[in-house]
């Protein structure tokens, strides 16, 4: 059993891949490197797929691409409405990134979302984007006033939400991916063959996509709240 705990810890630890010798040693974690790999794959696929787009008589590749993009686009468009249309590409990018990051464990990499730093960064960007959308829509004065709505007494709670929202986003994603990983490792320790397949489909694939969906869904809901009058 001690052996199992040791191996689990090793899997869970995010190793430092290399250190940049500035500012007293800048460590680069494995999660950042895997993110680079995901980025490279995504950009390469995007460039390959979105080549030679035609307005008239599109090919099969383009039709498939358009179907996928418009699926995501319409999903966010339905939540955000016309006023939030400018944020849709970011949300689409994030959902694809988290989706790939959550299931990249199947390809032998360590999921970046298993690292608290990555989910913290994602949550940080979400809350910045949410508040930016509110400021952009309402202006600073009305945005500040919106903390005292509907009544002034809830202002402390509204301000607390600024920290609670990203914290919950960050911890939800991190906890789900970590939990799914630990459960899968335990199952694989007990029964190494056949049995893990349905569990893997659930914990690695389904849960991975669901968490990506939940993350961007909540982000867009908060944004909708921020840009709505």
């Amino acid at each position, binding site marked *: 059993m001690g052996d199992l705990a040791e191996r689990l810890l090793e899997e869970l630890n995010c190793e430092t891949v290399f250190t940049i010798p500035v500012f007293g040693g800048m460590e*680069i974690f494995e999660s950042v490197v895997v993110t680079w790999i995901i980025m490279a794959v995504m950009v390469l696929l995007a460039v390959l797929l979105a080549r030679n787009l035609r307005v008239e008589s599109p090919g099969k590749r383009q039709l498939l691409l358009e179907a996928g993009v418009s699926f995501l686009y319409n999903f966010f468009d339905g939540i955000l409405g016309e006023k939030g249309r400018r944020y849709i590409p970011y949300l689409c990018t994030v959902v694809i990134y988290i989706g790939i990051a959550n299931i990249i464990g199947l390809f032998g990499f360590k999921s*970046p979302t298993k*690292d*608290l730093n990555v989910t913290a*960064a994602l949550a*940080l960007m979400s809350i910045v984007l949410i508040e930016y959308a509110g400021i952009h829509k309402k202006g600073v004065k009305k945005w500040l006033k919106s903390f005292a709505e509907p009544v002034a007494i809830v202002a402390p709670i509204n301000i607390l939400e600024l920290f609670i929202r990203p914290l919950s986003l960050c911890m939800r994603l991190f906890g789900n991916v970590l939990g799914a990983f630990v459960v899968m490792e335990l199952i694989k320790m007990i029964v190494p063959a056949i049995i893990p397949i349905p569990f893997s489909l659930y914990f690695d694939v389904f849960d991975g996509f669901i968490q990506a969906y939940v993350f961007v869904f909540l982000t867009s809901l908060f944004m909708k709240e921020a840009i709505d009058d």
Partner: protein
Amino acid sequence: MLRIDFWNILWTVVNLLVLYLLMKKFLFGPVIRVMEERKALIDSQFASASEAEKKALDMKAEYEKSLNQAKEESARLLDEAKSRGQAEYQRLVDEAGTQADQMMEKARTAIAEEKQKALRDMESEIASLAADAAEKILKENKSPAEDQMIYNAFLAKAGDSNEARGN
């Protein structure tokens, strides 16, 4: 795992921003632009199609109008021709009637003149017959019985000649 490191958070933020910009440039920008262009194209095609349909309908209405006008015109012309023909016919008939009347009148006049002339002829013939008879009577100097016979013969002759002329 639970080690929070400022630099790695910053790196991830930078990574995500770069990824966002790249994806926007290479994937979402072009794809959304293409879809919007297609939508605009389809909209413009629909608009031009409905415009063409409207134009066609207008033209159809115009054609129908002019067709109706032509129909009315032809009906009017036909009516006019008919009435003119009727008038012409009436005029001809009237003229023929007048002419016939005139001819009848002329014929009647001629007949009357002829009759007059025949009467005159007959009178002169009767006169000459009477003269002949008188001459005969004077020459032969006969008895009253003979005179009576001659007179009857004269009457018969005059009557015959008168009858023959009357026919």
